[in-house]
């Protein structure tokens, strides 16, 4: 997946080929779009990826299983814990390693907090896309980041790291939640919940925001399933598919929550799905704190030499619902201490496939609105 040169040919008179990215304020990192414009109307869009490729899958073949989880946290850098969670699930499946119940709940706890923080970043950057850095967009962005900052502060206090928390271990969770931290989590969830109406008023409740997103970038359920988009993007098209329900992992089988869906399939529906998921995840963290089972958080013996952990020969696939959709790890083991081959099934990559179908017919301003509503993370796309 190297960044293959795309030939830019202006085929006929009046057509303008515009190179958008990889350095552009609203391509969410280093996505490059080659747009063919007629006036301001997009007639063709070619996404070019690979500018953030770091060879994580190849790197996996050179590290032991217990060394790998932190590496994947750098993939989808807005929700790091989802990556390592999927990886440890696959390893546990391959090695038939049992995970204590409390550890499963703790994994879900961190994952839900990071879902809230990831969706807040998405909302803020959608604001930047629609409102610009010199306008109301930044205001929404700053408001979102104010709330997100408090989540990061909480996670720092809980795990020692603001971001790449490294909570998930093969066979358990690394950090235990004590009563004081549990109380702080509850207070934070309650306080962020009260901030949601304010964020709604600045985004979804604003007529200009509705005007910019309603009917823009409509994905029909057929197209969504045909291309293979996942996560909130899929659920906004009326397909109720959530890995947490469909192939329950960690503690999610025991946890009550709603799968948020919309049927419109446009940018506004994707916005609404993610916004409602904010409230749903805030409810979930409080449920988890209230019902956290007692017991150990780690099943295996303490590790002295990570390379001593060997997995049996075989293959395993495990997936989690990251804030962007189904994030899966496929491991092929040859019986040694390192994966023989590892493949990451990344949601942002799949969601980006819809771009050439959505952009033609829209205006340049719609391009940024649609991209923002898809919420791609380039670290997740390129790996």
């Amino acid at each position, binding site marked *: 997946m190297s960044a293959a040169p795309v030939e830019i040919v202006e085929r006929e008179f009046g057509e303008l080929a515009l190179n958008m990215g990889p350095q552009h304020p609203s391509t969410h990192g280093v996505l490059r779009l080659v747009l063919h414009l007629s006036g301001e109307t997009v007639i063709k869009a070619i996404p070019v990826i690979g500018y953030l490729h770091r060879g994580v899958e190849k790197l996996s073949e050179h590290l032991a299983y217990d060394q790998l989880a932190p590496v994947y946290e750098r993939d989808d850098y807005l929700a790091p814990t989802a990556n390592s969670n999927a990886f440890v699930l696959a390893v546990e499946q391959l090695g038939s390693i049992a995970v204590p119940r409390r550890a499963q709940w703790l994994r879900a706890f961190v994952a839900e907090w990071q879902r809230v923080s990831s969706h807040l970043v998405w909302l803020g950057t959608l604001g930047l896309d629609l409102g610009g850095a*010199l*306008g109301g967009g930044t205001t929404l962005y700053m408001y979102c980041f104010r709330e997100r900052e408090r989540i990061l502060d909480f996670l720092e206090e809980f795990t020692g790291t603001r971001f790449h928390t490294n909570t998930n271990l093969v066979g358990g969770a690394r950090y235990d939640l004590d009563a004081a931290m549990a109380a702080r989590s509850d207070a934070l969830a309650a306080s962020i919940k009260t901030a949601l109406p304010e964020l709604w008023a600045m985004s979804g409740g604003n007529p200009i925001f509705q005007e910019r997103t309603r009917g823009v970038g409509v994905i029909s359920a057929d197209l969504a399933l045909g291309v293979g988009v996942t996560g909130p993007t899929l659920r906004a098209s009326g397909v109720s598919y959530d890995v947490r329900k469909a192939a329950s992992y960690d503690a999610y089988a025991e946890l009550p929550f709603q799968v948020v869906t919309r049927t419109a399939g446009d940018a506004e529906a994707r916005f609404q799905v993610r916004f409602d998921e904010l409230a749903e995840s805030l409810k979930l963290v409080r449920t988890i704190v209230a019902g956290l089972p007692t017991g150990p958080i780690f099943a295996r013996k303490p590790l002295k030499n990570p390379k001593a952990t060997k997995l049996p020969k075989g293959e395993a696939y495990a997936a989690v619902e990251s804030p962007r959709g189904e994030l899966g790890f496929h491991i092929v083991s040859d019986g040694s201490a390192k994966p023989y081959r590892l493949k990451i099934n990344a949601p942002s990559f799949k969601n980006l496939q819809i771009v050439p179908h959505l952009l033609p017919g829209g*205006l340049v301003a719609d391009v940024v609105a649609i991209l923002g509503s898809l919420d791609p993370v380039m670290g997740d796309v390129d790996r």
Partner: protein
Amino acid sequence: MSALTTGWLGAVVLSATVLGVAMTIVAYLTWLERKVAARMQNRIGPYEVGFPHGWLQPLADVVKLIIKEDITPRAADRILFNLGPLLVVVPALTGFAFIPIAKGLAIVDHAYSFLFFTAFASLTLLGVFAAGWSSNNKYALLSALRMVAMAASYEVPMILALLIPALLSGSFQLTEVVEAQRGLWFIGYPLVGQVAFLIFLICALAEGNKSPLDILDAESELIAAYNVEYSGIKFALFYAGEYAHTLAICALAATVFLGGYLGPAFLPGFVWLAAKCLVLFVVILWIRWSLMRLRIDQAIRINWMILLPAALVNVLIAAFWVVGR
């Protein structure tokens, strides 16, 4: 009036004073905008350069921009490229010449100063288009094309809204327009005045590239709009031109709707004028930093479908009023 305000010497002194004051105010408007925006966003804004509250920041910015390398792209049209900033900044500042700062005192007190002002305000369009076209950059070109579409649309209701004060005062001379507001400011005229002011304010957002109508420097789409290839002092001129343009439009709105230099006698007239300008500017900032941006087709639809009919009906009502008075 003393010799300093009459004759050619008076014209020079007055122009220099107004220009100096206007440029200083423009520099400090950037500081004001950053402070207001910061307050709205739960931030502090400029703080370190100059005590208190970073008041030397505009000076530091200007010095930085002056000593920066001045780059002209190889593929650019050099003459137009260098002319662009001047074509923006000069007409924007010329607008101040027509604003009356005291009874019967304006640098140019022409019988049609009203029309001259709007004509000069529209001239900045030329500079923007020259810059966007000559940069030989596709983003700049798109922005320049948007500018033409927007300006061609929003000029119309703007002029129609400005006709209301002219109709009510029966004059195109700005000093006369202000004097006609001695009894009641034109914004105070029921419905006619308020509708005209509202239409003017919306058009001013479009003319001054302020969100939600900052279609042409939509930096999340077009990166930095028509001035994307400019750096150093030329960029600073664009920046100054934009703020001067906004300030001039605020001054015009204050003059024709809010009674200009009129106000209680304990403060001189120009202070009242400046205060009204500032209030309008902060209102524009408030709108700018709260709202998302409209798409260009939506912005133009609002103009032709809502603003233009409203402005036309408004002019008709005002005309009947004046005739029946």
